[in-house]
C-alpha cells in the first residue's frame, strides 16, 4: 500500500511521526497530523513542523498535542468493525493528532501545509516550543508527559512581570497543597532566585491536619526512582531546611504548650495578648464573616476598637490589660467588660458612639459573644510571655502556621491578623525580599460575594502585593467561588483534578476543551500549569514529596541549627555522664 504516510522520497529524521493532514483545515494556531503506521503521539507531546515561505527563511511551527483520534477509514457502519476484525472488509486504522500551536518562529503566522512532515520535538526544539529558551530564570514545576522537565518563568512568580499562583482542584485528589509546597521548594532550591534566595521567605497556613508539620523530616518513602525524578528536575531530594512551626496553645491549659499530637518538638504555640489585641486594633478581624460588612454594627466595631486602643494599658508580663481601672486577664474578661459598658446607659455613648441604637449594639454584642469560644485560646492575658509565640517570618525560610485545630472563625482571625501584620512589615521594609504566602481554602477568606477585613487584606496583596514582594499562593477547590480580582491577578494558574460541573465554568477558560475534559480524570500528582508566555497549559507530574507528610513517613530528623525552634533549653547543662562531685 503505497499511501501509508511514511516518508516518500524525502529524507526525514527518526523523530518523524506523521504529516500535516489536508482533510481538515490547517491554521497557524491549530493543525492536525496524520500519524505514520509505526508512530504514535499522545496528549501533551510536543511536535514541530517546518514549511517554506517564498522569500523567507523556513517557518517553524511548534505545538502541543491537544487531542488524538483514531478511526477506521473505509468503514461506514459501526458493525463494520467486526467484519474488519474478522478479515472480511478491508479498512485502515488512521490516527490523527490535533496540535495547538505554541510558537511560530520566525513570527510569520502561516498555516503548516498539508503533507509537510511533522517530528517529535526533543531537546533544544522542545525548549524552544515551550519558550524555555527565553526564560532567564526558570523554576522547574514537574516532569512533562515525555519525562523531561517543565519550567515556569520566575519573572511571573517574583513580581517582575507578574506574580501570584492560583491552584484549583477537588480536595483529596488534586494534591493542591503538595504541589504548592513542591513549587515553594523549587523556587527556593532550584537556584533560580540566585542571591535573592537568602531573603525569600514563605508563610504557609495549614488547615488540614498535621500534614505540613513534618516538612523538615526526610520522607522514608524516598527511593532511587524518586531521587532520579528530583535529579532530572535539578532539585535536591531533601526536606525543607529552615522551617519554624506554630500551633495554637492547648485550650484551657495554662502552660502554653502547642496543641498538636504528632510533632512533639520544634514547634511553638502562638497567641496574641490582650494588650496586643487592644493596641493593634485587632477587634475587626473577629468579625470577619462575609455578610458582616453590610450591617450597621460595623461602625460599633470601629468605635469600640478605637476606644480599646486608647483606654487599655498593658499590665504585668502576661499581656493582661487594665481598662478604666479594671484588670482583664482573659478574652472572656474583655468580652464581659465590653458587655457591661455597652449595656450600661451611662457608658454606652462613650463606647459605641453617640447616636447608635440599642438594636445595633445588641447585634454587635450577640456576635461578640459568639466569638468567645473560638477566640479564647488565641487571645490571652494569662500565659507567660515567650519570645517565640509571635508569628513572624523573620528568622527562617518557611513559617508554618497550623490552624487545623481552630474553629473556622479563629482561623479567619489568625490569617487576617498575620497577613495584615506581614503586609505592614513588608510595606515598612520596602521591596527587598520576597514573601510567598500560601493559603489553602482561599474561597473561605476571599469569597466572591461580600467583603470582610481579611478579603480586603488579600485583595490588597493580590493587587499591590507583587510590588511589595508579597506573592500569594492560593489554593481552592473551586476558583469560581473566589473573588474574581484575585484569580484574575494570578499569573500562574494551576489546575488539578476538577469536578465536571466546575470544569465547565468560565474561570477555567484558559484550558482548551480537551484539557477540561481531562482535568476531570487527572490523577493525584498531575497538574495543568498555565503561564502567561505559553498559550497552552502544560500537563506536569510533580514528584512525591521528599519531605514527610505524616508522622509515619518521618525519616531522619532534621539537623540542628534550623532557626529559633532548634534551640535546646537544656543544651548548656552538663552531660549526664559527668562524674558526680563527691
Amino acid at each position, binding site marked *: *500500500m503505497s499511501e501509508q504516510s511514511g516518508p516518500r522520497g524525502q529524507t526525514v529524521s527518526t523523530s518523524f511521526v506523521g504529516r500535516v493532514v489536508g482533510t481538515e483545515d490547517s491554521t497557524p494556531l491549530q493543525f492536525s497530523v496524520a500519524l505514520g503506521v509505526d508512530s504514535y503521539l499522545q496528549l501533551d507531546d510536543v511536535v514541530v513542523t517546518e514549511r517554506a515561505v517564498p522569500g523567507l527563511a523556513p517557518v517553524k511551527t511548534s505545538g502541543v498535542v491537544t487531542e488524538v483520534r483514531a478511526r477506521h477509514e*473505509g468503514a461506514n457502519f459501526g458493525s463494520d468493525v467486526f*467484519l474488519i476484525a*474478522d*478479515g*472480511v*472488509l*478491508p479498512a485502515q486504522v488512521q490516527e490523527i493528532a490535533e496540535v495547538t500551536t505554541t510558537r511560530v518562529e520566525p513570527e510569520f503566522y502561516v498555516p503548516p501545509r498539508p503533507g509537510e512532515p511533522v517530528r517529535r520535538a526533543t531537546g533544544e526544539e522542545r525548549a524552544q516550543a515551550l519558550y524555555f529558551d527565553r526564560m532567564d530564570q526558570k523554576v522547574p514545576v514537574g516532569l512533562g508527559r515525555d519525562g523531561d522537565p517543565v519550567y515556569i518563568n520566575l519573572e511571573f512568580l517574583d513580581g517582575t512581570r507578574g506574580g501570584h499562583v492560583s491552584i484549583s482542584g477537588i480536595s483529596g485528589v488534586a494534591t493542591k497543597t503538595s504541589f504548592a509546597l513542591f513549587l515553594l521548594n523549587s523556587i527556593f532550591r532550584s537556584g533560580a532566585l540566585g542571591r535573592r534566595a537568602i531573603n525569600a521567605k514563605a508563610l504557609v497556613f495549614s488547615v488540614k491536619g498535621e500534614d505540613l508539620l513534618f516538612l523538615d523530616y526526610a520522607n522514608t518513602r524516598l527511593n532511587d526512582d524518586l531521587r532520579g525524578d528530583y535529579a532530572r528536575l535539578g532539585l535536591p531530594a531533601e526536606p525543607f531546611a529552615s522551617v519554624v512551626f506554630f500551633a495554637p496553645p492547648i485550650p484551657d491549659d495554662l502552660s502554653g504548650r502547642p496543641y498538636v499530637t504528632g510533632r512533639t518538638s520544634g514547634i511553638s504555640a502562638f497567641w496574641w495578648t490582650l494588650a496586643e489585641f487592644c493596641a493593634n486594633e485587632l477587634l475587626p478581624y473577629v468579625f470577619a464573616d462575609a455578610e458582616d460588612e453590610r450591617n450597621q454594627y460595623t461602625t460599633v466595631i470601629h468605635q469600640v476598637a478605637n476606644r480599646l486602643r486608647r483606654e487599655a494599658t498593658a499590665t504585668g508580663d502576661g499581656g493582661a490589660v487594665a481598662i478604666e481601672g479594671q484588670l482583664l486577664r482573659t478574652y472572656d474578661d474583655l468580652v464581659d467588660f465590653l458587655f457591661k459598658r455597652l449595656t450600661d446607659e451611662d457608658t454606652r455613648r462613650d463606647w459605641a458612639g453617640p447616636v447608635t441604637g440599642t438594636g445595633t449594639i445588641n447585634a454587635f454584642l450577640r456576635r461578640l459573644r459568639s466569638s468567645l469560644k473560638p477566640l479564647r485560646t488565641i487571645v490571652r492575658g494569662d500565659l507567660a510571655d515567650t519570645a517565640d509565640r509571635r508569628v513572624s517570618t523573620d528568622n527562617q525560610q518557611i513559617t508554618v502556621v497550623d490552624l487545623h485545630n481552630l474553629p473556622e472563625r479563629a482561623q479567619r482571625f489568625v490569617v487576617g491578623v498575620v497577613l495584615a501584620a506581614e503586609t505592614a512589615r513588608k510595606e515598612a521594609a520596602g521591596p527587598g525580599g520576597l514573601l510567598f504566602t500560601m493559603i489553602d481554602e482561599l474561597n473561605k477568606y476571599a469569597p466572591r460575594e461580600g467583603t470582610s477585613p481579611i478579603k480586603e487584606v488579600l485583595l490588597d496583596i493580590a493587587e499591590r502585593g507583587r510590588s511589595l514582594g508579597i506573592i500569594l499562593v492560593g489554593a481552592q477547590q473551586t476558583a469560581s467561588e473566589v473573588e474574581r480580582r484575585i484569580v484574575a491577578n494570578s499569573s500562574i494558574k494551576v489546575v488539578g483534578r476538577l469536578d465536571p460541573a466546575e470544569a465547565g465554568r468560565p474561570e477555567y477558560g484558559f484550558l482548551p476543551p480537551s484539557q477540561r475534559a481531562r482535568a476531570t480524570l487527572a490523577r493525584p500528582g498531575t497538574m495543568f500549569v498555565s503561564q502567561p508566555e505559553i498559550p497552552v497549559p502544560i500537563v506536569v507530574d510533580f514528584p512525591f514529596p521528599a519531605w514527610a507528610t505524616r508522622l509515619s513517613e518521618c525519616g531522619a530528623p532534621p539537623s540542628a541549627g534550623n532557626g529559633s525552634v532548634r534551640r535546646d533549653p537544656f543544651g548548656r547543662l552538663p552531660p549526664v555522664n559527668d562524674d558526680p562531685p563527691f
Partner: protein
Amino acid sequence: MRFFIDPWDPGYGVSLDVDEIGESIARVVADIELPEDQWRPLDPGRKVEPPAVTLFVDGVRRIDARVWVGEPADDSIASLALCASYAAGVVCCCAAKGAHLLVSDVRRGLFTTSAHAVDIPTRAGTYCVSRADLDSRIASMQALSLALQARLGATEIDTAKVARAALNGHGLSETDDLLVIDGPLRGRQDLPRVLGYIKSHRREYLPLHLRRLVVSLLPGQRTPVFLLEGSWDRYAWYLRLPCTVGAPWAGIVRLECSATLVHADAIGMAWLSQATLCRYASVEYKDTRAPQNLYPIAGLERQLRRRLGDAMLLYRGLRRAGAYR
C-alpha cells in the same frame, strides 16, 4: 493535437453493459459432476477448508470527460473520445493481517479512434492514448467504452499477477490461496487457482428444467458443475449466497473456472468456492447490491474510487490542458 472537452456530463451515451457483448454459447454440457437427470442442490462439503489466503481482484472505471479530438488537417472534423480514470486492485484476506489492500494500480487513459491522438498531460496526471477500433455493429461511444473495459481487464490481470508475487512474503505454501476475479473469467483463464465471480444474470445459459433447480437452491447450496462451450470454454456453477429468500434469483451468483482444468479439479474449485465465499456475503442494509457484492470487493471498490482522485479536479485539469493547447 487539438482537443475540446465536451461540456456534457461524461456519463451520457455509455450506458451499455459491456460484459457479454459478442458472446455466443454453442452448447451446455451438464453432466460434468452429476448426470443431468440426477442434478440436485449440493450442500457445502464438510471436508473442504477455506484457503489460508483469499485474494479478491476488482477494478473501477470512471469517465472523466468526453473529448472531441480534432483532425490535424481540418479543425472542423473531430471525433469523439473518452478520457477515463481506471484502477484495479487486490484485497488479500488472510488470518495474519485481516483484509488489506495488497496492490493497487491507478491509470488514466484517452480512448480514441483517431490515429493522430497523443497523450494529454494535465496537472492531475497524464492521460495515455489507447486506440479503439471502430466496430460497425455498435456506436462509437460503445466501442470506446469497450476499449476502456478491455484496458481495465488487462490492468486487473496485471495487478493479480503482482499480488500473487507479493504473496511470497506472506510465508504461505504456494498453493494455499484462491484468486477471485470480479466478473467473467474471459481472457484470464491462464492464471492458476482463479475463479470468475458473476453477480448479475442477463443471459440464461441452462435449459428450463435445470434453471428450476437454480431457483430451488437454499442459501449456501450450489448446482453441480457444468461446462459452457462457445467462443471460449469454461466450467460454471450457480451458488446461492446467504440472504433472505425473496425473488427467485436473489443471492444467486455464477462462478466460473478455467476449462483447462480436468473435471475433478473443476469440481474441487466448486466445493472450495462454496466453502469460501459465503462468509464474505454482504447484508442488505449495508450494501445496495447485497449479498452478491462481497464485503472485500465493496471495500476494494471504495478504496479504488478514492484513489481515482476527485472527478471535478480531473475535469478541470483536462479543460485547462485543452485550453492551453
